[in-house]
């Protein structure tokens, strides 16, 4: 699959933007703004605001998540921050601290 992969040992401190699917195994601090799916893998750590249509978290996110379609917190995921998305899934086993805004 084409797309952007941030490997486990990679640390990005800054801003990542674009029109491409993103898989994060490493660390991103700052801001993520993409027009396609973002997946934070189990070993991924994101200390950033995430804005994307779909956000799936297996790993750790410290920061707000803005998903225009859906936010998906999988088991084992750890999220500290606010989530705004029309659909929010928080799986059993996920650790979450923050507020959820589904747009009502």
């Amino acid at each position, binding site marked *: 699959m*084409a*797309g*952007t*992969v*941030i*490997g*486990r*040992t*990679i*640390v*990005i*401190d*800054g*801003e*990542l*933007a*674009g*029109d*491409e699917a*993103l*898989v994060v*195994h*490493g660390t991103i601090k*700052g801001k993520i703004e*993409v027009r396609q799916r973002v*997946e934070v*893998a*189990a*070993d991924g750590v994101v200390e950033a605001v995430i804005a994307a249509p779909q956000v799936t978290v*297996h790993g750790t996110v410290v920061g707000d998540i803005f998903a225009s379609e859906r936010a998906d917190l*999988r*088991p*084992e995921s750890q999220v500290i921050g606010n989530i705004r998305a029309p659909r929010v899934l928080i*799986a059993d086993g996920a650790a979450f601290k923050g507020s959820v805004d589904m747009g009502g």
Partner: protein
Amino acid sequence: MAIAQRQGAPKLGSEGISTVIGPEIQVVGRIEGSEELRIQGYVEGTIQLSEALIVEASGVVVADVRARDVVIAGIIVGDVLASGRVVLQAGARVVGNITAPRVSVAAGAALRGQVSMGDSGEDGPAEGSTGGRTSFGRWRGGGSASGGSSGGRAPARGVIPKITRTPSRSAAAPAVQRATARAQEREDAPGPRIPPRRFTREEPPVPASPADQHAQDEIDGDGDVGAEDELIEVSEDGTVTTSLGKKQAARPRLPVRGKHIVEHR
């Protein structure tokens, strides 16, 4: 079960696929890591890797780069420092200084900047005045035994200009400007220098002339000069003044050269 699979999949991906910044992605900031990084998109900031950096043909890197190896088919604007090798492939465009033990530039690559090869421990001190002497001494001892055989007066004349020239070059001022300045000095010097100038004029279609002037303007205008001034300051504090002084001291050398030409004729 399904969850376990989902969690497993990305892990495989991480081991099988190196890090890729895709063509539609822009990163502004600092990237660090200890794995291979492949850039197809745009990165601005700094990059520091203990493994290889690959800038693919679509990749644009506006950053100072530090990595083991750097393979470039795209664009880098910034300095490149590699502990292994730097390869500019056809189509690569690099504006910046390259420091690495091994550097190769393929046909079809474009580069503007300083290139330093060799062990940093060896080349570093060569920037200084004494280091310059030893490095040239080594060169002369190595390949040019014939120079030694050319009689007693040769060393004196040979050594002085060489030492004076070393700092001026290693001071890393814009090469072209320096070179053209030197060429102009030469033109002012005794007559026999004219023929080469004529040949340059006779061949105006050479792509160098208009484009180079353009490039010259760019060099004058942008941060290159400043960056290299920085280099001077960082490398040797005293070098700036000594190199300027010596550069002027080197001028008397020109008449001597003129005399040679007379002999030559």
